[in-house]
């Protein structure tokens, strides 16, 4: 199942982004800290967006909303 693998990857990115955020914040680089968080969110969104698109397609197929 590639989806389960993805969950772990997202968890990894989340952990590392959290650590990076605190690290940069402690070093008085708040802007970079927020940038890193934003980048993390964007990366995960790119991974997840395909699955969301699949879900929408499924929903449309199930309810025959073509």
């Amino acid at each position, binding site marked *: 199942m590639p989806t389960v693998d993805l969950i772990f990857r997202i968890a990894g990115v989340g952990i590392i982004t959290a650590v990076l955020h605190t690290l*940069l914040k402690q070093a008085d680089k708040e802007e970079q800290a927020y940038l890193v968080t934003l980048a993390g969110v964007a990366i995960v969104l790119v991974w997840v967006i395909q699955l969301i698109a699949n879900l929408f397609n499924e929903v449309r197929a199930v309810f025959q909303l073509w």
Partner: protein
Amino acid sequence: MIGLKLCGALIVIFALGGAGILTAKNYQQHPQQIKSIRIAFRMLETEIAYAATPLPEALAKISGYFSLPVALLFSCTREALLSGEGLTATEAWGVALTAFAPQASLKDEDLEILQHFGSGLGNSDREEQVKNLKLVQEQLKVQEQKAETEREKNEKLWRTLGFLMGAVVALILF
């Protein structure tokens, strides 16, 4: 297949971690090098003001006391002075500075101070030389304090940041 992937991930993590450590080292060396240069200038001041040593001899003496990147600045100036091309002390200092700059972890600001010092080197009497040396020491002291605060901020950060960046890249590519 998974072993190969894991191997690549480890390589990426350690490569970026190494890059981070190198950056941290640069930050660490910056104030140290400024301090050595400042001490060298104080020694040069003593040589000029009290011992009245000729410049090439004084430079040779000083370059013996320091380790490589800083010693290069003084030994290179001496070599340029004695090369027989008829360079003035200012020109010799400039030559040494261009050789020294890529090997040192100094910033443009610090190099500019050194450059400015060179323009007053060896073209006036002893008292003016001493004044010039005192001025450059004061300026370097300010730069040293700045570098020190910067080191405190950045050294630890880069040490960790490199490895974390490596982990992120490995995870994204995995």
